[in-house]
C-alpha cells in the first residue's frame, strides 16, 4: 500500500520490515541507545510475570493472620518481615503486584480506548460532533483527576472495579485531547488525502491510517498514565477509598503501614519501593519510546 510508505518513517515499523538478523542488530542498537529504557521494560515485564504467577512467588498465605508473628523484622520472619497482623509482607507485596498492576493496566487500556475513540472520531469528523465531544472532554478535565476519582468512588463504593472506573473516568480526557490534536494534524497530511481520493470509507481511514499513526503518542501517554494510575490508586487507599481490606494492593499495604511507620517501618518500605520502581520504570520507558520515535532525535 503506497500510503504506508508515509508511516514507514516510524522506526518500529521500519524495524519489523527487515530480516531476522538485521532486526536483532537494530534491537541491539536500541538497547545500546536506551539502556535505561530497556531496563525499565524488563522491570515492567518482570512485574507482569510476578503478577501472573503470584502464587508461585509468594512464600506464605498473604491473608492468614498470626498473633505469634506480629511486627517481626525482615529476616526474622520472611525476607520483608511481617505486619501488625503477623502477615508475611513479601507475600502481600507479591499479591499486591497482581492487584496494582492489573488495576494500572486495565485502567490505562480502558482510558486509552475511550480516548482514542472519542479523540479520533471528534478530530476526524469535526463540526458539531467535535464541538460537543470537546465540551464533554472539557467538563471532565475541569475537575482535578483525584477530586473526580474521590467523588466517583464515594458514589460507587470502594471496590477494585470501582477504583478502575473512577481512575478511567479521570484519565481518559487528557489522552483524548492529545489524540484529537494529533488526528487534526494528520487529517490534512498528504497521505490521508490520497487515501480519500482512492475512495476509502471514513471508518476505514480512521482504523487503517489515522489510528496507527497516533499509536506512538498513545504509547508514550499510556506509559505515563500507568505510572500516575498506580500513584492515584495508592492515594485513594490513603484516603480510605481504595482497595478494601484484606485485599493487598501496594496502596493499601502502604496506607496501613502509615500507622506503624515508627514501630515497624519495613511494613511501608517494601510496598513503597515496589511503587517507586514501577512508576520509575513506566516513566522512563515512556521517555525512551519518545526519544526513539522522534526521528529528529535519532543519530
Amino acid at each position, binding site marked *: 500500500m503506497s500510503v504506508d510508505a508515509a508511516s514507514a518513517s516510524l522506526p518500529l515499523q521500519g524495524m519489523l520490515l527487515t530480516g531476522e538478523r538485521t532486526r536483532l542488530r537494530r534491537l541491539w542498537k536500541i538497547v545500546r541507545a536506551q539502556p535505561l529504557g530497556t531496563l525499565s521494560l524488563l522491570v515492567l515485564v518482570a512485574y507482569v510475570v510476578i503478577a501472573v504467577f503470584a502464587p508461585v512467588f509468594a512464600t506464605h498465605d498473604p*491473608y*492468614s*493472620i498470626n*498473633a505469634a508473628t*506480629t511486627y517481626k523484622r525482615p529476616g526474622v520472619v520472611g525476607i520483608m518481615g511481617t505486619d*501488625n*497482623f*503477623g502477615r508475611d509482607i513479601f507475600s502481600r507485596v507479591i499479591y499486591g503486584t497482581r492487584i496494582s498492576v492489573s488495576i494500572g493496566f486495565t485502567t490505562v487500556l480502558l482510558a486509552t480506548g475511550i480516548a482514542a475513540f472519542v479523540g479520533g472520531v471528534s478530530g476526524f469528523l469535526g463540526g458539531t460532533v467535535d464541538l460537543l465531544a470537546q465540551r464533554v472532554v472539557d467538563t471532565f478535565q475541569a475537575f482535578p483527576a483525584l477530586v473526580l476519582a474521590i467523588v466517583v468512588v*464515594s458514589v460507587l*463504593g*470502594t471496590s477494585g472495579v470501582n477504583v478502575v472506573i473512577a481512575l478511567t473516568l479521570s484519565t481518559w480526557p487528557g489522552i483524548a485531547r492529545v489524540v484529537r490534536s494529533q488526528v487534526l494534524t494528520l487529517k490534512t497530511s498528504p497521505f490521508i488525502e490520497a487515501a480519500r481520493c482512492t475512495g476509502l470509507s471514513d471508518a476505514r481511514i480512521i482504523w487503517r491510517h489515522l489510528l496507527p499513526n497516533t499509536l506512538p503518542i498513545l504509547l508514550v501517554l499510556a506509559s505515563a498514565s500507568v505510572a500516575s494510575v498506580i500513584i492515584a490508586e495508592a492515594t485513594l487507599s490513603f484516603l*480510605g477509598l481504595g482497595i*478494601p*481490606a*484484606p485485599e493487598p494492593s501496594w496502596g493499601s499495604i502502604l496506607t*496501613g503501614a*502509615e*500507622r*506503624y*511507620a*515508627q*514501630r515497624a517501618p519495613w511494613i511501608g518500605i517494601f510496598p513503597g519501593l515496589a511503587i517507586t520502581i514501577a512508576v520509575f520504570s513506566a516513566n522512563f520507558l515512556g521517555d525512551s519510546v519518545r526519544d526513539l520515535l522522534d526521528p529528529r532525535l535519532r543519530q
Partner: protein
Amino acid sequence: MAQEQYWDRIATSRIRRRTALKGGVIASAGLTTAFLAACSGSSNNTNNAKPATATAAATAASVAGTSAAPAASASAAAPAGSPAAKAAASVTPKKGGTLVHQINADPPSLNLWTEFTYVVNVAVAPVYNQLLQVDPLDESKVIGDLAKSWEYTNNDKTEIVFKLQDATITWHDGKPFSAEDVKATYDWLSNLPKGVVSQRTTAARNVDKVEIVDAKTLKFTLKKPQASFIPGISSHHFAMGAKHIIDQTNTLLDSNQQPVGTGPFVFKSYKRTNVMDFERNKSYWRPDRPYLDAISCFIIQEPATAITQFLSGQLQLLRPFAVSDLAQITKGLGDKGTIDITPSLSRAALIPNGTKPPFNDVRMREAISAAIDRDEYNKIRDEGKGFKGAYLNPKGQWGLPESELAKFTGYDGKQDLQKAKQLMTAAGFADGYKGMMPVRTDFEENAVALQQQLKKAGFDFTIQVEKSAVLTQRATDTQFDLLCHTWATPFDDPDDGFAEMIISPDRAGRNWAKITTPEVDRLFDLQRAEFDPAKRKLISNDCDRAGLGNYPNMIVLYEPNLNARYNFVVDFKPQVSQYTNQRYENVWLSK
C-alpha cells in the same frame, strides 16, 4: 459526703508510666464505676467557699505502684480525705499556664445539646456547668455542680428537689444566673423543638415538668421512676443554657453559634480544622478556680502527626490513642509523662442480621461466637490489653463476673471450631456459609482479624468497607449479613448498656440485628425502676445472661482507653466515660 472535704482533697491518683505497664490495664483503672449516688436517693452536698489545696496524692500513688499488688495500686488515690492523704506533703496548686490538648476531628458544631460525637464535649465542656456532675475523682459518684444538693421528695421517687449554689453566679456575657435558666434548659431538653435531634440527653425526656419553688430551689417531676436519672443528667451534654439565649436562638449556642456558659473557661475563638481557644473566666463562681489561664484545643486528624506533636511537647495531653502506638509513646515520653490505661465503654462486636436466614437461627449466631478467637483478637488488635465482657462494662459495678461469662459459647476467649461446625451442621450449613460483612472505615482492621478467624470455621465473609454515611444506612435498613462494628455507650449504667442495642428493636436505640429477647425486655424494665443498687445489679446480671444466651450481638472485646500526659499536668484523671470530667477546672500545671 461533705463537699468541704471533697474540695480539700482534689487530687488524682496517678499511675506512673511504668506502673501502668507493670500492673497492666486492670491496675490502672481505679474503676469502681458505678452510680451509687443515684440510688442512694439523696446526697447533701454543702457548698464550700474555702480555697482548696491539692494534696500530693501522686506521691502516694507512685509508692503504691511499686507494691506487689498491681490491681490495687492504681485505684487507690489514697482513700479520699484519709489521714494518709492529708499527711502527704500538701502542694499548693500553681496558677497560670495554658493547657494544650487535641481532638481528632472538627465537631460539626459546638452545640453540646444536639451534637453526638465525643469531641464536642472534650473541647467545649470547660465553658459550662451542669446541674450535677460526676465526681472528677471518683467516677462512681455524682456530686453537685450548679445544684449544691438534691433529694427525692416522694415515695414513688418521681419528685426531686434541687437546691442551687449560694454563690453569685454569672453568665460569661455578664447576665446573672438564676433558677429561670435551669427551668428553661430542662424545658428545652425534655420537650425538644420540632426537628431537633438530641441523642445524648435522653434522660431529660423523662422530665414531666420543672417548677421554681423559690430563687434557689427547683422541683422536678418525672414521668416514671428511673434509677439512672441522676447519673443520666450529669454528663457534659446536660450543659446549663441561659434563658436569655434560649429565648433568642431556641438552642444552647448564641446567634454567632458560639457557646456561652457559667463555666470556668470562656470561649474565645475557633479556627476550624486548626484550633479552639478558651481563656480563664475571671469571675468564676467557685473561688480560686480555675488554675489555668487558658486552654487550647487543636484539631489534628492524623494520629502520627498528633503523636509527634505530643512527644515534641507541643501538646500536653494525648487521647485517646491506639494500643499499637503505646510502645512508641512510652519510649518517647520516658519519665516525663504518664500513661493511663482504662477500660472504655467501646465494644468491638459482631452484629448478625436477625431478619433473614441464616442468622435468624440462634444456632448460627452461636456458631459465630464459637468461631471467634477472642484471646487471639485481643493479642493482635489490643496487644492483650482489651477485656472480655458481656453487655455491661466487665470491670465496672454492673459487669457479669468472668466465671459466669465463660459459660456462654466463645466468651471464655477460646476458639471452639468443633462446636462451631456442629452448630452449623445442625442449622443446615455443614458446607459453610458465604456472606457480606460491612464495616466502617475506622474499624476495618478489626474486620480483617475477625474475618480470618471465622474462615477457619467455614464462614467466608467478604469485607465491605464503608464510610459512615453508607454504613449508617446499611445498619438502620438491616442490609448486611454480619456487621462488624464497635459500639459505645456514654455511661457505665445498665440503662445505657442494654437500651443501646439489646432490648427489642422498637424500643432500643439501634438494635441493628432486629432480634428480640422478651426476657431481656422484662428484666430491663425491672432494673430500671429498682433503686437498691445491690438488687439492681442482680437483675442486670440476669438481663446480661438472658441477652448472651440469645446471641443477638456478639461482644468480641471491650477496648482499652489510652491517655497520655506530661507529668506537669497535675490533677487530671481520665474516666471510663468520655462524657464526664472534661472541664479542667481543677487541673494545673506544675512547670
